[in-house]
């Protein structure tokens, strides 16, 4: 899938593939017990992202031009980075190991006490809204900033187009 995204030149197909990729990722998340994450990925990653990208394609162009050089340097760089990361995984705890360090710190506390402390059965909700509430506040701030940014970028665009349309009209009026 990812290789197809690399190779394909039609941006429409690329965007569709990335949507499918997100959906498959969501299915994998369900398989790995992360149901909340899967919901979000399916709705936001596969849904909203795809719509946003299709909108961009509608406003710009649908076809990627063929580059006139062969990208050997990036390929070498990627292979080197991949090899380094691969070496890094050799020390990782195995998949599903209950004794991995990640499961020893605060997670047991959350699992055992958060139903009493917060009173909601879904622990992900407990942590998201309560223990890590500041994270969520920061997230909202980021979304707000991004929204303002997009408005600032695209709002001016609409005004400019309107102005040029007005000018077209006035020019047209002058001519006839």
């Amino acid at each position, binding site marked *: 899938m990812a290789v197809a995204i690399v190779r394909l030149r039609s941006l429409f197909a690329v965007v569709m593939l*990335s949507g499918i990729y997100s959906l498959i990722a969501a299915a994998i998340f369900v398989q790995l017990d992360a149901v909340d994450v899967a919901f979000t990925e399916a709705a936001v990653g596969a849904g909203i992202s795809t719509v946003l990208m299709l*909108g961009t394609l509608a406003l710009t162009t649908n076809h990627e031009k063929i580059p006139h050089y062969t990208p050997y340097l990036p390929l070498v760089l990627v292979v080197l980075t991949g090899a380094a990361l691969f070496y890094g995984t050799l020390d990782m705890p195995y998949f*599903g190991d209950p004794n991995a360090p*990640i499961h020893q710190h605060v997670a047991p506390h959350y699992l055992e006490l958060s139903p009493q402390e917060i009173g909601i059965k879904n622990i992900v909700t407990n942590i998201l809204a309560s223990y890590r509430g500041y994270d969520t506040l920061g997230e909202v701030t980021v979304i707000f900033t991004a929204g303002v940014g*997009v408005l600032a970028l695209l709002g001016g665009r609409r005004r400019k187009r309107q102005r040029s349309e007005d000018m077209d009209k006035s020019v047209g009026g002058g001519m006839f």
Partner: protein
Amino acid sequence: MEGFDIKTVLGLYNYWIVIVLAMAGFYIVISRANLVKKIVGLNVFQTSVFLFYITMAKVDGGTAPIIEKAYEVYSNPLPHVLILTAIVVGVATTALGLGLVVRINDAYGTIEEDEINAQDQAE
């Protein structure tokens, strides 16, 4: 380094998938000139990182971290929370990036990086 027995391979297989996906996304970002494709590449990379976190959260024989009497073992909920936040932030940044692409297309009439560079050089 101890030899690659089947246990090692199965235990680390998910991480390797993550690395392949991440490198595919990385390659798209640094080798393609098209700006929309770069953003798709970033998304691929991003999803691979999500997969990495969720992989670490999985516990053998565990189930989704929703307290129910019938279950004893749950997966680690903390990475789930972090990734939940990251997905939404990721979409926000994607939206901003695509907004920039639209503006660049307005200003230069193209979304190919080398053509934009050429126009900048010409000025």
